[in-house]
Each structure stands twice: as C-alpha cells, then as structure tokens.
C-alpha cells in the first residue's frame, strides 16, 4: 500500500493519494513508514537471521522515529521540515492543518507500530504481550478512522482540527495490526485465539462477528435513519433486534458445533480409556516382565508380573532407578542396555539376568524407545521373557549332542576296529587253516599207505573239521560285512527272485521231491542282492528241515498288511518248539545237532540283520514235527495306495522292527492275497 501511494505521489495521481477528492491524502511520510513497516515485519520473521534481522530492527526503529518526530511537531508546534521533504501537497488537495504532515493519530499509530515491530520477536513473554496490546491499540485507532469514513463521521477520522487520517491509511493499519498479531500466534493472548481447542475455535469464530456485526448494523441503521426510513428509537430497536437475532443464531451454531466437538472428544476419551484398559489388561496378564523407564532410568511403570516376581508395587517403584532395586552389577547392566537403546534409537534384544528366589534367571529382553507426538524418545520400554528353562534345555541339548558326537566318534572307532578285526580274521585266521588243510591233504596223498585205518579216519576227521571251520569263518565274515554293505533299494520282482532260488535249491538237491506253492508274490522294495540272501537262507532252511519228509511241501507267499509287505516261507519239515523261538535268530544258535542237520547257525541271524536294515521285522511260528513258518516284513514305498488300499489308511510305523511278531491290526483292511 505504501509503495502504491508513493507511486501516486511520484506520478501525481490523486486517486492513489486519497481515493476520492473529498478525502484527505495519505501523506508521503505515511507511505514511507508503511513501506518500512512491511519490510520490518518481513525481516523480523522467525526464519530470518543475522544482518537481515538487524536491518528489520532498523526499519522498525525508523517507523517509530517518523511517528515520534511528527508527534513532536504537533506537540511543540515546530516544523522540522520533514512533512514536505519528499513531495509538497498540491493546491487541489483537501486543506489540512499542516499541509503534507500526517495526522496525529497516524503518527501515534506509527509509534505503536514501531513498538510492536521491535517487541514482537522478543523471547520475553511480557514484551510480546505489550507488543500485542500495542498492535491491538493502533488497530482500534485505525478501525475508528475507517468507521469514521464508513459512517461519514468526520470527528472520528482525526483529532480536533488537526489533519485527518486517510481512509487507506486506516485500512492499512488494520491489515498491519492483524499481520503483526498473526506473526506470533504462539504467544500472549494470540496463543489463546489461535489454539486448536474449543476456546480458539470460539475466539476465531466470534471475534470477526463481534467486530463486523456492529459495524454493519450500525452503518445500515445510519443509512436508514439518514434517508428518513425510520427514526432514532426505531433504528435503535431494529439494530438491537438484528443484533440479538444474528448473535443468537451465531451463538447457537457455535454452541452446536462445540457440542458436537465435545461429543466427539468424549467418545475419543472413552476410546482412549478403553484402549488404555486393554493395554493394561495385556500388560498385567502377560507372563513377560514389562517395564517403562524414562531416559534417566527412573521407573514410570511396571506390570503385575514384575510386582509379583520381585515383590514391589508399581506405585512404589515410580521414580526409583534400577540402582535402587537391584544389586549394583545387574543395575549397571540394565542401565547400559537402556542407554544403548536410546543411543541407536531403535529396538534391541538383550539377555539379562535377574535374581529369583531359586537363583538367577535369564531373561530375553526386547527394549525399545517410546516416542512422544514429536517423535522424540521419552522413555525406554522393556519386555522381558524368562528363558531360563529354555536356556537350560538348550544347554542340555547341546550337552547331549556333544555326548552323542563323542559316542558316535566312539562307535566309529569301534567300527573301524571291528573292520580291522574282521579283515585280520579274514586273512590271518584262514592262513593257518589253509595250512592244516593243505598238509593234511599232503599227508593223505603221500603217507596214506603208512597209516592204518584208524589213522586214515583221523585224517578225514581233521580234514572235515578244517573245511567246516573254513565255512564258519566265511559265513561269519559275510555276516559281519552285511552291517557295512551299501544298500540300494529298488523295486524287486519277488516271484522271479523266488523262482530262481527254488530252482537253485532243487538243482542242489536233485533226487528229492518238492511241492512248491508260490502265491501273491508281487513287487517289493528292497536291495535285490540282500533280499536274495534272505530268501536263499529261508528257502534253504525249508529244504534242509524237510529232508526227512518223503515230499517236501514248501509254500512261499506275500500279502500286504498296513504299510508293509509280509513275506512268509512255510514248510512241512521237522518244525521247532515255540519255547525256543527267541533263540532262532541269534548268531550260532542252533536247535539241532550238526549230525541231524548241518549248518553254521548264522543263516537266520543274517536274515534278521538284513530285514532290520530294511526297516522290517522277522518272526517265526512252528510246532515240533509240524512244520515251521518264517515270516518277514518290508515297508512298502512311502504313501503308496495301490491294490485298493484306502488312501487314508495309516501306514504302520517303519520303526516297528521289534523282535516279537506284530499284534495283528484288525482295524486295517487286509489287502493282497
């Protein structure tokens, strides 16, 4: 506004200088002071620093100086020549008491503006309030002047006979006043007006109404009265009526909106209370220990678990620190962890130790900063879970694992030793045996003539025993190798394999009569070579123990039961007493004398070992002279549901490789034939 009017002065445009010919002009000094005020307001803002800020203060001081000097001219009646310094008042302008000099009210206002500009940026609360009072004061003075123009009351626009304040001067002052007040909305009574709460809302809505309403109504009343529409009394009544009506409506509207805000606030408060109760519930019922401490380590809150475990009360520990509650080293550790959380400004995990009645317990603590609305951390929250038991278990597991590893190492060593042993047996035990056999044979060849019958019989016995010993050693070595041999499971055609074995047996026992009965021999999953050993042994046994029968009836069958293929070999041989069943599968266990049925007693042990390695079981049934049935099972391939096995049938556990026959599972549908 100042620069616009200055332009008017430079170009001599009356419109810009005084708005209308009948009004007084805004003086050049006034315009300059306004420019300075604007500059000062801009330069003393909160973002401005250093030299610019000082320049702003100089401008403010300049404004006050202009006002003061002009006032002194009025008061002391002198003329310092500043009024016409820039421009001289044209003769066409409205005559004023002192041409070119601003109105005394304007001068007073500028003094106040200067004061306000100087004091407003201050940190001192009282100074700001003074500034605000000053701003309001010159605002009111200018309002008065504007009203004077609006209501056409010349008395209001100036003091007595002195120069009057121009209309746009008054308006500019009003704007300036508002601007200055808004420059510091956080201080003094502006803080109340600008607050985001109900009071602020009330002030911001009612103040404009309170200022504008009387002005407008007063103007309407004056206009009506001057045009003779109504008299004084009616005018007053109408104004009063209108004011009552409008204010009532405004107040009602405001009250309603405040009421709604209140309802919302209360709902929000209830929500807050509820969520607080929820949080409290969670806090107090968790098995974790929860603490909240301020950055200096003073307790703000502990939960019920804490209270119970350490026999303290929440209210009692508030304000205390860890050093008041715990032994020094522990408190130091807690504080160090809290400090670390504040340092990294984020959540961290710690192992913390706290003393319990039964000794120290280990806690896994998650600690994190709590932040205020501005995001600054104001506390450290810790949630600690007792992991003593877990730690103990972990240590136990670690210990057991170490033991197991040691045991495995031991087993490995024993195995290696065993391997070396069996190697040695294989090599060293057979050598002397070979020598005995060799030289006995040489004896028989070279010296048979010089021996009598008894001597030759001895030689035969020695030779036979040597052969048998060689066989035993070979069998034993084979048995030992079984435990180490690599196993490759594939699908094996059981029928084909059994036929090969039976043909071999028949070939080796030419002249004997056999009735073979093979049934339900399907595919099984096994190591083909090892399975052949099993079948050779079982069928070989059947052939051997039916040696006394006229016709040997040997039945080989397979059925699927649960998750297993169950294979049996049944004969009509000499059988055995069930009392000895437990001995059958042991190494070197025999139920018959060598002379009755020859054998090393290692065949069934071999069978058992192979079947166990496949995850299956072996068992036997028999009666003396009533034949025997040897049965073994092999787990089927995982989760196979062929041959009509219902998909939901649980396969029997593979671990069930006990030594006794299985309990028949009658709930499982028997499939296969």
């Amino acid at each position, binding site marked *: 506004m100042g620069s616009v009017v200055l332009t008017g002065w430079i170009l001599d445009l009356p419109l810009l200088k005084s708005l209308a010919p009948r009004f007084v002009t805004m003086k050049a000094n006034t315009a300059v002071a306004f420019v300075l005020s604007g500059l000062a307001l801009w330069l003393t803002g909160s973002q401005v620093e250093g030299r610019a800020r000082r320049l702003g203060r100089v401008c403010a001081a300049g404004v006050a100086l202009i006002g003061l000097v002009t006032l002194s001219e009025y008061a002391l009646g002198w003329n310092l020549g500043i009024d016409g310094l820039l421009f001289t008042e044209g003769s066409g302008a409205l005559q004023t008491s002192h041409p070119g000099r601003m109105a005394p009210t304007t001068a007073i206002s500028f003094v106040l503006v200067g004061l306000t500009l100087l004091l407003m940026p201050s940190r001192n609360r009282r100074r700001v309030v003074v500034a605000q009072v000053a701003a309001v004061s010159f605002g009111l003075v200018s309002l008065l002047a504007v009203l004077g123009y609006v209501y056409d009351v010349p008395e209001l626009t100036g003091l007595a006979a002195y120069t009057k304040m121009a209309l746009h001067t008054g308006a500019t002052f009003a704007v300036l006043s508002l601007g200055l007040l808004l420059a510091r909305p956080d201080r003094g009574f502006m803080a109340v007006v600008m607050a985001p709460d109900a009071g602020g809302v009330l002030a911001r809505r009612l103040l404009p109404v309170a200022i504008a309403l009387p002005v407008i109504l007063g103007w309407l009343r004056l206009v009506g009265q001057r045009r003779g529409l109504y008299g004084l009394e009616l005018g007053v009544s109408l104004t009063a009526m209108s004011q009552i009506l409008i204010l009532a409506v405004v107040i009602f509207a405001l009250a309603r909106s405040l009421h709604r805000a209140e309802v919302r606030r209360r709902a929000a408060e209830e929500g807050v209370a509820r969520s607080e109760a929820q949080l409290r519930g969670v806090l107090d019922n968790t098995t974790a220990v929860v603490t909240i401490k301020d950055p200096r380590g003073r307790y703000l809150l502990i939960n019920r678990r804490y209270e119970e475990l350490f026999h303290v009360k929440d209210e009692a520990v508030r304000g205390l620190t860890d050093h008041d509650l715990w032994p020094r080293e522990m408190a130091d550790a807690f504080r160090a962890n809290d400090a670390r959380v504040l340092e990294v400004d984020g959540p961290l995990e710690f192992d913390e130790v706290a003393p319990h009645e039964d000794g120290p317990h280990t806690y896994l603590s998650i600690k994190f900063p709590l932040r205020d609305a501005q995001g600054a951390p104001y506390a450290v929250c810790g949630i600690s879970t007792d992991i003593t038991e877990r730690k103990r278990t972990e240590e136990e597991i670690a210990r057991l694992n170490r033991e197991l590893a040691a045991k495995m190492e031991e087993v490995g060593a024993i195995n290696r030793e065993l391997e070396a042993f069996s190697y040695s047996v294989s*090599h060293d035990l*057979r*050598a002397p045996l*070979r020598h005995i*056999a*060799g*030289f006995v044979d*040489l004896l028989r060849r070279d010296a048979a003539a010089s021996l009598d019958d008894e001597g030759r019989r001895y030689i035969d016995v020695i030779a036979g025993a040597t052969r048998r010993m*060689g066989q035993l050693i070979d069998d034993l070595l084979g048995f030992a190798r079984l435990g180490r041999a690599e196993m490759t499971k594939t699908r094996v055609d059981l029928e084909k394999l059994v036929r090969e074995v039976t043909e071999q047996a028949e070939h080796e026992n030419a002249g004997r009569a056999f009735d073979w009965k093979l049934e339900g021999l399907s595919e099984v999953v096994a190591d083909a070579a090892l399975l052949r050993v099993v079948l050779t042994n079982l069928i070989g046994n059947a052939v051997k123990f039916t040696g006394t029968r006229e016709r040997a009836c040997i039945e080989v069958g397979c059925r699927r039961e649960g998750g297993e293929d169950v294979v049996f070999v049944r004969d009509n041989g000499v059988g055995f007493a069930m009392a000895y069943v437990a001995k059958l599968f042991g190494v070197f266990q025999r139920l018959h004398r060598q002379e009755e049925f020859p054998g090393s007693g290692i065949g069934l042990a071999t069978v058992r070992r192979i079947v166990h390695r496949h995850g299956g079981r072996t068992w036997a049934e028999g009666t003396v002279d009533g034949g025997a049935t040897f049965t073994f099972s092999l787990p089927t391939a995982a989760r196979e549901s062929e041959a009509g096995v219902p998909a939901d049938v649980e396969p029997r556990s593979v671990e069930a490789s006990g030594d006794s026959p299985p309990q028949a599972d009658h709930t499982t549908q028997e499939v296969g034939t």
Partner: protein
Amino acid sequence: MNHLRRILMAEDSDADAELTLRALREHHLANGVIRVRDGAEALDYLYRRGAFASRGEGSPAVVLLDLKMPKVDGLEVLGQIKSDPALSSIPVVILTSSREEVDLVESYRLRANAYVVKPVDFGQFVEAVSTLGVFWAVVNEPPPGTEGS
C-alpha cells in the same frame, strides 16, 4: 623239458610257499619259481639290486603276489611295478587269503592282472594255483624281454 619261464613268488609264509610250490610241481612248474619273503625283496629282484644285483637280465613271466607281507606290502609292490614303464608290462597275479572287497578294488585300481583268493580246501588250492601257473607261465605269451630258464 619246456622252455621254462620264471615265476616270481612273493610270499612271507613258508607253509603257503611250500603248498604253492607243491601245487606248481604237479605241473612241473616249480623249478622256474623264485621265492622272495617280502615286498622289499620282490622289488630288489625286479630292479636287480641288493641280493639280486648279479642275476641275469629279463623279467619274470608272472609275479605271484601275496598282499599281507612285512616291510613293503603287496599293494605297494603292485603300485611300484605298474607305475614303472620298465616293469608295468609284467603280469601280476594277487594271490591272497583276503576276500575283502577293499583289497579287491584297490588291487584292480592299481592294475593287477588277476586276483585269486587262496581256497582253504587243499584240492581247490592246488587246482587254483596250478591253473594260474599253467596259464601265465605256459599258455600266455609274455611280453618281450621276459627271462628264460
């Protein structure tokens, strides 16, 4: 008499050596046998050094090698023979008590020409030894440079 070829027999056991010789004798092969008692002696013979520094030139038609011997064992001798271009063409037959698969695998890895497990039964033993003696020392055409009788 046949043009007799030499057989180098490395065998630490006197009994085994006697039995082997006896078996070979049945086929009139025993006279061509040179017996050494350990791997070191076997290598001395092959390289004509030590006790064998003054022997005539030429390599044996076959080496019968026991695996378990003092000082230098059979596998070492085998490895040495087969890795030396001058000796690698000599047929080597492993003649051992061991049925262990590791021995078998290792012997063939070192390029043994045959692997024979000594049977406990003397009849079988005689048969095995004489068969391989006849094969290697009579039937088989040895590489050039093989020593004669």
